[in-house]
């Protein structure tokens, strides 16, 4: 009966999917390696937002766990890549 939320969810899904496409374009095109790491960072945050939106749509709490895991692994990945670009080594002795 109150049909506003499904529309908003669809809108948010489309917007975030478009945002992921933009980030993917920058990932493929980026002139420097930093641009690609930045695009990958954006891509995982956007993916997390997408999963959270899907969680709202399906009303399931499992999507929250997926989003938390994406946040954890995404941070480790992009921090390691940024550290590698900065120092040439991830874990320094």
């Amino acid at each position, binding site marked *: *009966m*109150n049909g*506003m*939320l*499904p*529309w*908003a*969810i669809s*809108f*948010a*899904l*489309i*917007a*975030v999917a*478009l*945002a*992921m496409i*933009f*980030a993917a*374009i*920058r990932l493929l095109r980026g*002139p*420097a*390696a*930093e*641009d690609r*790491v*930045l*695009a990958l*960072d*954006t891509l995982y*945050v*956007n993916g*997390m*937002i997408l999963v*959270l*939106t899907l*969680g*709202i749509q399906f*009303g399931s*709490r499992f999507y*929250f766990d997926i*989003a*938390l895991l994406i*946040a*954890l692994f995404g*941070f480790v990945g*992009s*921090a390691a890549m*940024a*550290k590698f*670009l*900065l120092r040439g080594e991830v874990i320094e002795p």
Partner: protein
Amino acid sequence: MTMDEIPFWADLLGSLLLISGGLLTLIGSLGLLRLPNLFARMHGVTLGNTLGLGCVLLASILIASIHAERFVFQEVLITLFMISTSPVTTILLMRSGIYRKRADTEKEPVSGQDTN
């Protein structure tokens, strides 16, 4: 749990939060394409990282609390995590960008490959 038993105000507020979150994320990623160089692009990413994500998390808290008929705020964990980690990545990338740019210009002052 079906969608058609949430009150009107939650419907309106959740929709507003979701729409603004989606729009902010979209604009932030659009900044990746429209802004001219690496350092400027980083600002666009922060947009989706802070308020874009925050709006969607608030909407998720709201809808989940209404469905479960109690206050569910596990999403605060993601907020705390992102607040403490996303600056780390950004600062590391910023410093490596500065460092590598300086290393480039010291080696060859007119570098054709770096279009920044």
